[in-house]
């Protein structure tokens, strides 16, 4: 069968550009897994709206110039498929001990366990976020936002497929077992929780959703970038295509927060409020005050930092040295790509003080990726602050200090303010509600979460977007809700 790898084969039950039709065994395994996936989608996917027609994009090609088409589709009928970026000819392992050798097209035996573990961890996060967000459809502030939520959900579902394909194609019986386990674990479940802490937290409201897609999905983006560098070529190709879709998720988060901030500023101006920290006055307008947005940001940023693991990590070093997981934009970095003698500054807690210490760069890879992440996070911050200053308010949103509210790494056993001042337990307990969303902050936000399903209408706490999806006009019916 002569297939153009750019285009997706829809002739099999599972759309793909990996010639599944000729790979009977893997096709059989995937078809065996498919019903379990659909069951999972019905049990744990979006609550309600399964019969609604949603204006979704579906990948039809992996050509970066035009890879998706938009149409109405019922979510359970979404064509989840296996899509890999095109194979680069003569690709070399771009880092680690085997730097410069041909990239692996099959799993190297000595790294099988490590590779499988990385793929399972990545795979576990994809369905987890769908589970965390499953109730949000019912309180969507508009059809536009509802559609974006579902788009993110179906694509996280597809990312699960991507990881499951790798497990089933390359890891034999163990891989199939792991693929089943990915459907068995459930976010927040006491008996079989998802593997990473942040993916067992609740996403109780839409501001949390935007924060999640901005901060936590951005961790996912960084991890995908690192895996896209992998010397194991199928993993690299899978992740490269996943990044194309992931961009939309970042967009939903960034513009979502921008629109919330915009609406708050507009309302404050219209009401003649000068002091954005006068919380009661602002809340009386039915919008979310900036200090509460800052608290939400503090929470999600700090939870997301935990996802990078310990600053100094043997696992990260092993994965790099093995050629399995590289650095962000590895191929654009000008060094030996082996980190033989390099060091990297790491924030550590030494004798009760936060200090920057040089560590072997190889073991400090988590720290480096986290630094890249922080830089990436700052960009949105600038945009939000621009909205605030344009509206004439002297208030700045900012990222809290690395040591703030951490459960993993150097600072897990200490308390620090968002400015990075170390404080004792008593002070922390007394003041933490100033920095993290309190019960009453949460209650207030939840009280605003009234669904808006009229075409072209938006909840009063969020501004409409500047442009529609697929350039659709403001009154476009993004979701046709079943009656």
């Amino acid at each position: 069968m002569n297939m153009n790898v750019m285009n997706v084969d829809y002739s099999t039950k599972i759309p793909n550009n990996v010639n599944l039709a000729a790979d009977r065994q893997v096709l059989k395994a995937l078809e065996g897994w498919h019903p379990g996936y659909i069951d999972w989608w019905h049990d744990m996917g979006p609550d309600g709206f399964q019969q609604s027609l949603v204006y979704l994009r579906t990948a039809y090609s992996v050509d970066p110039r035009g890879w998706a088409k938009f149409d109405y589709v019922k979510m359970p009928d979404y064509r989840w498929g296996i899509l890999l970026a095109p194979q680069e000819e003569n690709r070399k392992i771009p880092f680690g001990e085997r730097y410069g050798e041909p990239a692996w097209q099959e799993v190297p035996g000595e790294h099988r366990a490590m590779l499988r573990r990385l793929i399972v961890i990545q795979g576990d996060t994809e369905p987890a976020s769908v589970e965390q967000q499953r109730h949000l459809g019912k309180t969507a502030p508009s059809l536009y936002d509802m559609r974006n939520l579902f788009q993110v959900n179906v694509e996280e579902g597809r990312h699960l497929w991507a990881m499951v394909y790798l497990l089933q194609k390359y890891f034999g019986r163990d891989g199939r077992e792991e693929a089943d386990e990915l459907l068995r674990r459930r976010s927040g479940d006491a008996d079989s929780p998802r593997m990473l802490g942040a993916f067992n937290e609740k996403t109780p409201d839409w501001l949390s959703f935007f924060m999640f897609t901005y901060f936590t999905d951005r961790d996912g983006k960084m991890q995908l970038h690192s895996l896209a560098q992998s010397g194991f070529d199928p993993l690299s190709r899978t992740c490269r295509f996943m990044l194309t879709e992931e961009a939309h998720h970042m967009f939903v988060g960034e513009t979502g927060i921008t629109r919330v901030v915009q609406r708050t500023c507009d309302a404050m101006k219209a009401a003649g409020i000068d002091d954005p920290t006068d919380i009661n006055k602002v809340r009386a307008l039915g919008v979310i005050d900036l200090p509460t947005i800052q608290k939400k940001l503090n929470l999600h940023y700090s939870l997301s930092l935990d996802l990078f693991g310990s600053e100094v990590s043997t696992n990260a070093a092993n994965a790099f040295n093995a050629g399995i997981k590289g650095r962000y934009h590895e191929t654009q970095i000008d060094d030996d790509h082996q980190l033989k003698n390099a060091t990297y500054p790491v924030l550590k807690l030494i004798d009760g003080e936060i200090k920057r210490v040089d560590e072997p760069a190889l073991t400090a890879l988590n720290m480096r990726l986290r630094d890249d992440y922080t830089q990436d996070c700052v960009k949105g911050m600038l945009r939000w602050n621009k909205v605030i200053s344009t509206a004439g308010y002297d208030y700045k949103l900012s990222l809290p200090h690395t040591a703030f509210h951490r459960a993993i790494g150097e600072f897990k056993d200490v308390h620090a303010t968002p400015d990075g001042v170390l404080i004792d337990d008593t002070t922390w307990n007394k003041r933490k509600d100033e920095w993290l969303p309190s019960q009453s902050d949460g209650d207030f936000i939840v009280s605003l979460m009234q669904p808006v399903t009229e075409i072209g209408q938006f909840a009063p706490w969020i501004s409409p977007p500047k442009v529609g999806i697929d350039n659709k006009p403001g009154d476009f019916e993004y979701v046709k809700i079943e009656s």
Partner: protein
Amino acid sequence: MAGEDRVLASGAKYIDFQTDPSRYRHWKLDVNGDVATLTMDVDEEGGLFEGYQLKLNSYDLGVDIELADAVQRLRFEHPQVKVVVLRSAKNRVFCAGANIRMLAGATHAHKVNFCKFTNETRNGMEDSSENSGQRYIAVVNGTAAGGGYELALATDHIILADDGSSSVALPEVPLLAVLPGTGGLTRVVDKRKVRRDHADFFCTIEEGIKGKRAVAWRLVDEIAPNSKLEAKIAERAKEFAEASPRRGDGKGVALTPLKRSIDDNTIRYGFVAVDVDRPARIATISIQAPDAAPPADIDGMLAQGASFWPLQVAREIDDAILHLRVNELEIALIVFKSHGDPASVQAYDAFLETNKAHWLVNEIRHFWKRVLKRIDVTSRTLVALVEPGSCFVGTLAELVFAADRSYMLIGSREGDNRPAPVLQLTALNFGPYPMSHGLTRLESRFQADPSDLTRVRERIGEALDAEQAEELGLVTFALDDIDWDDEIRVFLEERASFSPDSLTGMEANLRFVGPETMESKIFARLTAWQNWIFQRPNAVGEEGALRRYGSGQKPRFDMTRV
């Protein structure tokens, strides 16, 4: 790094094996009715030496000293406890095993002593279950890797959380190029009867095995979802408690702190003294007979508590042996001497035999058994000198039979008004103190002709002089006053001049005559294989796996099969 001496944390001068629950940094011991919970919560900053952190409930000798203390106290201080639940206070980690950075930076001698002690602690848990009816349940709620799984293996029953991630693993071979050091391989196949090919697979995968397969392969006894875990633990604890033969009642005996003073060349306890002759590389352990008759009855013994002579002496010898093992590495020989009235020692042995059904007497007898076993696996030349005024009777005579060489003086010495030495057997030489391979020291001694054993048994209670003892095969040599000084001096000097390595190997080969048990296998395998692997460049060389662990760099192996 490897081979250099490490610095003890907090300015300590020596490693101390004495502790108590009020001083624990890594464990918590809670007793609730007949169930005790022993919770591992290792303090990262609480390493015995400087230079490493004890992350993820990994342990060093200091952590194990506390565990050993807890296991011991449970037997003596808590007669009502029938079940011990062993669990972790850490989130999603049961125990990561021995701390690798500690191992990578430790001297070879420390590694060996560390492994030996941790093995003795785990054997002690099994002994507790078998002989005191204190059954152990391991609750593996997270990762149990390497020594962490071995700790669970030492319990009677392993419950694994079925949460999709909790697992058991022995990753030593793939990850560290060494072997599990606390009996993991042996217990997997010999105790848990995991099929050997399954064991082979299991021992070559870093990530271990979880869930149903762990049960199917017999690596754990059962799995339970988190929501049902506590109920399952309670159910099993109840079941085990009901089945336990332990019938302890009343208050236990508090293991009060030992009276001990340590100077450069001496350690003084109540009944035991250690004198170190550094130029000669000899440590002499002298044991003093009790100065009073045994108590009239059980209540009298209970009233004496930790100062009851057999208990106090056992604790003191135990501490002395452990101290010499890890703090006095250049000592080549340990010489046992005893002083006092043989009749008095005999009377205590009679008390221990008459009252053996009482829980505390049972504990003391088993404690003596373990102390003697510890002596058996101590890699120093063991010598017993049976001199005038000595009291090697029954329990103390076991030291003579544990020795690699024993010398007894014929008659008395000129100018010495102490009586000529006698050696005396009691019932306790014929059963309650088996070695690790299951035989008593006398059974093991007389493998050539079992009738020798019958012959000595007939002499129980008799005060045997040197020539009789030699004739019966109970001592190596009986020497008269003329030869004594010179023969002993020459032997000690000659012995100290041999290679310590070959002596260690030779003695270990000769001491355990007869069959093997799981316990003896564990020590034998450890000595033969682990100690070899721990010395090889593939593990400890500059490019070896232990040295490179944590650096991200792959170890380089010499691929020659030896």
